[in-house]
Every structure is written in structure tokens, then in C-alpha cells.
């Protein structure tokens, strides 16, 4: 039973370096457990590795294999890709580095040309990763350009301006490349942008379509914005979306409205902010949407990774999409239709009585920010954030790093000036020992908690589940850890020396499984100590390669 995995590993290692990453390979990323070809490891956003060399039985022997020190100062939030033995990662401000994934040695480096006077309103000019298609690597820039690099040399193939940084637009998320297209979101709602998702021709950089996350004059949904408020309606698209090749649908989370805290001048639901949108990949047209937080005034954007999986609901097999939303609720939707199927709070939230039959929150009176402040949980950073959840098809569980803390929300008057903050308030968070976190395993169909591993403080790092029966995660205090995917029991941990503020991945080179995560301005890569249990497969090491 171990043979298919070993075969895959062997093939991965024997493949010529920098082979073409075809669209077919991206669609079947799970068939290449040695590689990590997309932001989330597969197009469905699961962040699950079918590798099973590191298991619950031997993870205690996990040791550092190599460490990469970033050239740029600044905390890495990158989620690396690994293609046939080569790792591509981004540093602060979107610089790209290609490394030998076995040894950590640098192969090439691409330095962004950052213009003086760069605007980064409401966030640091971070970067969360690249996309790869054929022999090209795609990366966004903090001044809202999209760049295509030759995967062998790092040389620029093309650069296109996506939006005007002078208005606050920026790109921090990893692009998604599929079917000849490169998709990218933008950020900048904190400066009152009008957000969108763009699709570019991967070969030429020519723009194929743009989907505005805020409908314009004459478009459906504009009636959910008072007056002309849609023009500065925000709706960033920070975080890499997911794609279902069978349905041809792209799923992307939309950010908060502008102005952030003061909703007085934008009466209505403010579509499609704080919503999940399903777009036709070929045309960019909206197939359906589901809004988690209508008329948001707490910064609870839907900038979380939408996770695609299959499930049986009421006796019927259905294609599903789940999101552990920043507002504190876990949602399950039918991903073909957008139908709401389930919604459950996964932290202690204080703003909604619950969800109605359509999944719309029943908001508690008095939960809006005010001049004198309104205290409630979650805080502006939410119950989850940009970092990734994980779904294990093997364990049948959804994992989320949950944040439990409250905040006092204030509202101030605000007016729009291009390229300036457009916030209308602020918050003072309740920190210290009262603020905590947890890794939670949820029943993917209902959101009911199966187990919870408490964290000392509200986390800022994503999770990875593996076929070895493990869930990897990180803490603000610098600990990178492995839990039993079935029980949540801690099995291994390592002090990395800096805050873990990134998503882990797993890959293999030469038959050896690695687990990698960024911590501070380093990338730390772990593998089993040589000889430690690698030749002693147990039942739990059986590979569970499940195809999408």
C-alpha cells in the first residue's frame, strides 16, 4: 500500500528540474504529493498534504533540515510553492526567491522596484506568495502591479499595472493561476478603493476580465449602497480564492466596506462586501453570492480561504464550500448554487443572536461602533483572518486557528480624500491574558466542534493537515507544533525564535518529506532525523491520496 506514494516521490525526484507546470498538473495537484503547486496546495483550498512519511508515530523525531534567512527585514507571511525540487517564496514587499528545496541554497532572486512614496494604508507591504503556470512564476507588488517571471532565471517576462497605488490599491495576496489565466485580487478598502478581481492572460499579461466587487451605477446590487457611496465602497480581495474545474467556478472572498467603522453614509447591505462570490472563470460574470456580514462596521471581511469539499447533506451528495469567517461563524454552502446549508459560531461571539434560515445574521441591537465605544467579540481581526484553515479528507475534519478576543469599537466622522485613510473610527483591543486562541477541529458539515487545542494568545498562523494524521500550526510566541489530527493531542513542538505568521506547507524531495513554515524573517524546514522511523511504516503511515 505504500508503493504508490513512494512511486510518486520517486517520480517527483526523477522528473527533470523545472518541468512545465501545465494546467492539467494544477487541476490534479493531489496526484503529486511531492509538490506544492498552488497557494493552498490544491485548487480547492484544502491545505492538505497526502504525504505520510511523517506520522503521529514518528513526528517526535522531526528536526530542522535547513533555514533560509530573508534578505529583506520584515515578518514573512509567505506560503511557498514547491515544483520538482525548487521552492519559490516571497519576502516582504514582494521580492521573490527560488531555492533548492532540498538544501535551501538560493537559485535566483527577483527584486521588486518599489517606488518612493509607496502607499500602504492599513497594512504593511507584505506578500503572501506566488503562483506558477507552465514555466512562469507570477507575483503581485505592493504598488499594485502583476509581474510574470521566468521560473528558471527570475527574469521578467511582463509587468502590468493592475491599479493605481496613489489611490491606495496594493497587492499582498498570492495570485491564482489556472487554465491560461492569472487571477489576482487587490487591497485598499482602508483608503476607500472600489475593489475587484482581475483575470490576465498568463502568456501576454493582457487583461481578460475584471469583476468589480462593488456594483456600479445601473448594475444589480448598487441599490444596497446609499447615494454614491458605492464609489468608495472598498471590497478588497486580499486572499487567494479557490477554483472548481468541474463547475468552472472561481470562489473568492470579498473584504470590508469603506469607510470601515462608520456606516452612516452607506445605508444598506453594501454588496458584495464581506461576501463570498462565485464567478464564471471564462467570463468573470457573477454566478452567485453569499453575504456573511451585511453592512459591516467591524472590519469582518470575508478574506478567508474558501475550502471546497464533497459531502452528503440530507442524504444527497453535494459539492460544498466552507468558510470559517472572520465574524465568528463557520458556514457551509452548496458551491454550485450558493445555497446556505449550515452556520455555527466557532468562537464566543457577542454581536449576533444567531443566523436565520437563509444564513443572515440576527444582529444584536447596540453592536455598532459609537462615539463612546462599543465592546464586543470578536475584535477587528476577527475569529479568523487571512491565514489559512485546513481540511483533511482523510480525517473528515475542518481545522481552523481561532481567535478569541474582544475589543472596544469607536466611530468618528469621516470624509473621503483620494489616497488617504477612509476609516471613520478605531478600536482598542482587549489583550493580555484574557485574549486567547485555539486550534479547533470542526465537523465540516455542521461546524460542530470535535476537539479544541487551546493557544496562549490569538493566533496569526495558518494550519496544514497531512495524511500522516497530523495538523501543523504556529503561535505568536514562536512555537511551531504538530497535533494529532484525530484528537488534537500535541505530539511535537519547536521554538522557531520568532512569531509564526504564515501558513505551513509540506513537500518531498528525493523520497524525504519536509514541512516548511515561515517564522519571523526566516523560512524553517523540518524533516525526520535520518533513520528515525522512516523505514518503519505503520498502518497510520498508509498514504491517503484522495483525488479531487
Amino acid at each position, binding site marked *: 500500500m505504500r508503493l504508490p506514494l513512494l512511486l510518486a516521490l520517486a517520480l517527483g525526484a526523477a522528473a527533470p528540474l523545472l518541468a512545465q507546470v501545465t494546467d492539467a498538473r494544477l487541476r490534479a495537484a493531489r496526484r503529486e504529493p511531492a509538490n506544492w503547486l498552488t497557494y493552498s496546495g490544491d485548487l480547492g483550498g484544502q491545505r492538505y498534504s497526502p504525504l505520510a512519511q511523517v506520522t503521529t508515530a514518528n513526528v517526535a523525531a522531526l528536526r530542522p533540515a535547513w533555514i533560509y534567512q530573508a534578505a529583506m527585514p520584515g515578518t514573512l507571511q509567505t506560503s511557498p510553492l514547491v515544483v520538482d525540487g525548487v521552492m519559490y517564496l516571497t519576502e516582504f514587499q514582494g521580492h521573490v526567491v527560488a531555492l533548492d528545496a532540498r538544501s535551501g541554497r538560493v537559485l535566483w532572486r527577483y527584486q521588486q522596484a518599489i517606488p518612493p512614496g509607496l502607499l*500602504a494604508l492599513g497594512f504593511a507591504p507584505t506578500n503572501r506568495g506566488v503562483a506558477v503556470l507552465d514555466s512562469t512564476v507570477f507575483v503581485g507588488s505592493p504598488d499594485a502591479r502583476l509581474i510574470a517571471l521566468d521560473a528558471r532565471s527570475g527574469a521578467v517576462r511582463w509587468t502590468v499595472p493592475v491599479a493605481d497605488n496613489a489611490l491606495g490599491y496594493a497587492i499582498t495576496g498570492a495570485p491564482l493561476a489556472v487554465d491560461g489565466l492569472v487571477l489576482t485580487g487587490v487591497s485598499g478598502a482602508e483608503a476607500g478603493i472600489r475593489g475587484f478581481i482581475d483575470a490576465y492572460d498568463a502568456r501576454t499579461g493582457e487583461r481578460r476580465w475584471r469583476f468589480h466587487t462593488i456594483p456600479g451605477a445601473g448594475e444589480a446590487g448598487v441599490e444596497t449602497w446609499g447615494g454614491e457611496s458605492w464609489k468608495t465602497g472598498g471590497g478588497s480581495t486580499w486572499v487567494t480564492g479557490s477554483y472548481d474545474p468541474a463547475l468552472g467556478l472561481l470562489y473568492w472572498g470579498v473584504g470590508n466596506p469603506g469607510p470601515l467603522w462608520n456606516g452612516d453614509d452607506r445605508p444598506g447591505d453594501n454588496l458584495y462586501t464581506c461576501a463570498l462570490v462565485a464567478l464564471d472563470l471564462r467570463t468573470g460574470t457573477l454566478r452567485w453570492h453569499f453575504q456573511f456580514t451585511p453592512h459591516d462596521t467591524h472590519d469582518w471581511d470575508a478574506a478567508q480561504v474558501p475550502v471546497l469539499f464533497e459531502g452528503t447533506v440530507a442524504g444527497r451528495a453535494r459539492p460544498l464550500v466552507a468558510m470559517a469567517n472572520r465574524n465568528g461563524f463557520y458556514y457551509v454552502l452548496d458551491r454550485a448554487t450558493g445555497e446556505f446549508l449550515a452556520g455555527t459560531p466557532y468562537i464566543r461571539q457577542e454581536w449576533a443572536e444567531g443566523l436565520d434560515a437563509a444564513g443572515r445574521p440576527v444582529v444584536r441591537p447596540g453592536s455598532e461602533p459609537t462615539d463612546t465605544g462599543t465592546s464586543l467579540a470578536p475584535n477587528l481581526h476577527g475569529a479568523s483572518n487571512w491565514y489559512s484553515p485546513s481540511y483533511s479528507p482523510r480525517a473528515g475534519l475542518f481545522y481552523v486557528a481561532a481567535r478569541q478576543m474582544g475589543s472596544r469599537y469607536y466611530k468618528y466622522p469621516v470624509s473621503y480624500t483620494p489616497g488617504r485613510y477612509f476609516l471613520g473610527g478605531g478600536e482598542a483591543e482587549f*489583550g493580555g491574558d484574557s485574549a486567547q486562541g485555539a486550534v479547533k477541529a470542526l465537523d465540516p458539515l455542521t461546524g460542530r466542534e470535535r476537539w479544541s487545542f487551546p493557544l496562549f494568545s490569538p493566533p496569526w498562523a495558518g494550519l496544514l493537515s497531512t495524511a500522516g494524521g497530523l495538523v501543523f500550526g504556529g*503561535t505568536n510566541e514562536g512555537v511551531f507544533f504538530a497535533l494529532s489530527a484525530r484528537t488534537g493531542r500535541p505530539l511535537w513542538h519547536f521554538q522557531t525564535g520568532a512569531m509564526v505568521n504564515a501558513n505551513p506547507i509540506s513537500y518531498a524531495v528525493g523520497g524525504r518529506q519536509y514541512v516548511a513554515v515561515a517564522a519571523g524573517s526566516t523560512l524553517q524546514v523540518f524533516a525526520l532525523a535520518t533513520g528515525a522511523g522512516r523505514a518503519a511504516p505503520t498502518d497510520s503511515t498508509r498514504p491517503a491520496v484522495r483525488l479531487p
Partner: protein
Amino acid sequence: MRTTPLLAALLLGSAAPLAAQAARDSAFGPVPRDIVEGRRLFESQCARCHGVGGTGGVAPALDRPRLRRAPTDEALVQVILTGLPGTAMIGFWNFTAEEATQVAAYVRALGRRPPEVLPGDPAAGARLYAEPGRCGACHILDGQGAGWAPDLSEVGLRLNAAQLRQSLTDPGAAQPISPLPSVHGPYPAFLAVEALTAGGRVIHGTRVTEDDFTLVLREADGTLRSLDKTTLRRLRKIPGQSPMPSFAATFTATELDDLVAYLAGRRGAP
């Protein structure tokens, strides 16, 4: 309070709406626009770490007459714009020079304090402080003394007379705060903890640092203990306690006044 209406509004009414506050203040005189604008920026950009009103949080309190890393107004603007390397203070390159100046003006307003009239005799307070086995057994002041309690060389910049008095008489309620052990501070700098080990031993101490797997505590005699939390049978945290004893019954009212007067004058090198 012998403070100006503006400062009173800024220091006390930190949550009042700006427009209403400006109207109210105008009865006493114009509010400098820089300070009003600076406050707006501060509360949306700085307060999350430095606290609403600059009272401190994850990042240091800024309601101080002197800021160690920003002794001059120019230096303060520079810190705001370019940050402090090696700390969590990032440069706010998104601020214009005018906005940085406005934030700096607001921060300076926070630190302005009315002079306090202190009844005690600082010289008498200094003698009490220096008595053998007293404060210097745990605190360092101008390089003298020993121990792991807070350095008091600049305590007069950090605490006003009422806070100094509370520190002496009810230290558990006057806990200094610390950004450690995590990014989501503030934490009490001297949290009392009680750990029950697997072997059945009870260890009392003060938390030095903590994460999910490790607790480092200091026992009363100064011994550091690094504990693996996963092996503990029980871990209890006891907020509101301080390793410092109360001196409410040790000193007379006059002596407390003297000590407060002495400590209020500890403002470091001029």
C-alpha cells in the same frame, strides 16, 4: 485639578466625539487643529498598540512628559515616520509630514502634566529608601541596588503621585504592565502563578514568560524555573497579586508622603 480645559478634555474625555468635544472646548478657547487632527489619526492608527489616550498597551505608554526614544519634537516625528528598528514600531510611511506632525502634537499634549504639589520631604524619603534591606534589595535606582523588580531611575516620569502611593500601599492593584510574553499584550509584568508538578510538588512564583508549552517562573528567592506545561497537573494564575509587599502598615502617613516625594523626583539624567 489645575489643568487646562483642553488638556482635561484630551486626557479624560478620550472617547468623546471630536465634533462635540471641539464645540465644548471652544467655550474655553480654540483647540489647536493639529491636536484634534492628530488625535483622530492616533486613535485609528496608534491606539491599538499604544492604548486609547496613549495609556499604553502592547506598546509603551506615551502619556509621559519625556519619551526616551523621542526626546525632541523632531525626533518624535522621525520615529512616527520611520519607526524604531528592532522593535514592533513600524514606520508610518503612509502619513504625510503634516499628519506626522499632528500626531506628534497630540502625543506631546498627552504627556503634558500639571505640576503636582507634593506634601512630603524628598530628602527624608531618600533616607527611607536607602535603609538597609528596604527598596534597594529588589529595585535598582541610578545603578544602585539589586534585583529583578522594576528599575526606578525614571519612575517619576512613569507614575504620578497617586500611582506611586498606590504602588507602595497596594502593589497588587498597581501592577506594571509588560508587552511580554506575546504580541497580544499588555500582560501584568509580575503575574503570580502556582504550578502543581507531575511529582505532586507545588511551585509558587512570578511568571517571567510563557507560551503553549513553556512556563518560566521565578520563585520568591529569585530562582528561575523552566517548566514544561504539558507535564503539569495544574497551573493556576492569580491576578492582582504582587511579589512586592504592601508598605501601608510599615510606614507612617508622613513617611509615605516623603517616599512619594522622593520617587516623584526620580526622572533619570536630565
